[in-house]
Each structure stands twice: as C-alpha cells, then as structure tokens.
C-alpha cells in the first residue's frame, strides 16, 4: 500500500454521477480513506499519467468519454498496481466479464455499502 504521510489509504472514485461520487466519497472518508473523485476514465488515466497514485480505484463501468473497461485496461498497460475495483449496477454478464478481464481485482454492486468495503479490505489485506 502506498498510503500517504498520515498512513491513510487513498482511494480514487471514478464515476460520471455526481450523487454517486458524493455518497461514495463520504462513505470512504468515514471508513478512513483519503479520497479524490473524477468524472470519467480519461480523467482517471490522466491523474495516474501525471504521477498521482492511489491504493484503491473505485471504477464505474459505464461513463462517457472513456468507460471503466477501457480505463482499467489502460491503467494496467501503464503498469498501475492499484487495487482497481469495478462498481456497477449493470446486470449484463458479458459486459461485467469484459470489465473483470480488463484488470479488476473485484467487481462490486452499486451503491457501495460499508459491509462490501469492509469485506473487500479484509480480502485485500490477506493477499
């Protein structure tokens, strides 16, 4: 984990929906993360290209400009080792499969819950 000087884990929320960014941002902050949020996959890629890095990336699947699948692929091609977690309410298995294969650690249902994040952290810290 890269973290920061205060040893908090860092999370980037990537979602085109303002409400989702606000709710997920607050949830992750309360769970002890330092958070940042962007509106689409291209902005996420640009952040990493500029040298920023995050322990976790919570990536929405369907976004304009660059979707989650493409952004995840690009980040992995760049050598990004962050734990990228897909977040989606889509129920089309083929799309979710392609999303996972792009390089996700896991795919969670939207909206995120405390339990889902706690469970995720437990799994990640075991590895």
């Amino acid at each position, binding site marked *: 984990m890269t973290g920061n000087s205060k040893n908090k884990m860092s999370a980037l929320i990537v979602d085109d*929906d*303002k*409400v989702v960014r*606000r*709710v997920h941002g*607050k*949830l992750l902050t309360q769970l002890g993360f330092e958070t940042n949020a962007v509106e689409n996959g291209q902005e996420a890629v640009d952040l990493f290209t500029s040298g920023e890095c995050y322990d976790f990336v919570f990536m929405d699947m369907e976004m304009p400009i660059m979707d989650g699948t493409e952004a995840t692929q690009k980040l992995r091609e760049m050598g990004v080792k962050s734990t990228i977690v897909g977040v989606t*309410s889509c129920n089309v298995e083929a799309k979710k499969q392609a999303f996972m294969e792009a390089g996700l650690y896991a795919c969670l249902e*939207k909206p995120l819950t405390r339990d889902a994040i706690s469970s995720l952290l437990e799994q990640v810290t075991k590895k």
Partner: protein
Amino acid sequence: GYLDEQFIQLEDLQDEANPNFVEEVVKLFYTDSARLLRKIDLALDDRPFDFEKLDDVMHQFMGSSSSIGAKRVQRKCTEFQEYSKDGNFEGCTRTFQEVKHEYATLKKKLENYFQLAKVAR
C-alpha cells in the same frame, strides 16, 4: 415504502463534519434528476426513435436513484428498461409517466421528511 436500506446508510453517513449530508445529497439528486428526466422527455420526442439512447439515460437516472435508496422509482425504471430493450415505444412512454409520478411522490415525501426533521431538532 418509498425508500430502502440505502437511505438509512445515507443517514449513517451524516456526522458533525456534514450535519446536513442527507439533505445535501437529496438536493443533488433533484438537480441531476431534473436534467436526466428532461433528456428522456426529449428523447421520447425524437424521430427516428433511439432506444439505445433512452436506455442509456434511464440507466444513469437509475444509478442516481439507487444511491439515495429510491426503490419504487428504481422499480419503475427497470420496467421502462424492459420495454426499451424490447423496442416497445408505447410501453416506454406509458412507463415513463409512471417513473415521473413516482419521482414526484418521492420528492413530496422527502420534503415533508426534511421539514419534520428540522422541527424535531
């Protein structure tokens, strides 16, 4: 009920740092919803009809609705999506009126809720 456990999660997120978090998020939802519902209204007037575009905008609206736990609105959105996947224009138009009705009812109930919450403080 009109709201599911997600609304309770929103209330749990309210704290000293953000004492009006729920109201803030709900207001954000209203602004975003107005824009998306308008987009769907316009898309329903488009000729030739674009089911894919409709489905896409409705999916966005559903995402917002699920973030505040608006379960009845979500259910109607799912019905709408079934019609749009089948290419059923009449079904879409009819269900969209029902989506707007559920949204308006929820908005009224939330306004009452926040008024009562202010009085109770």
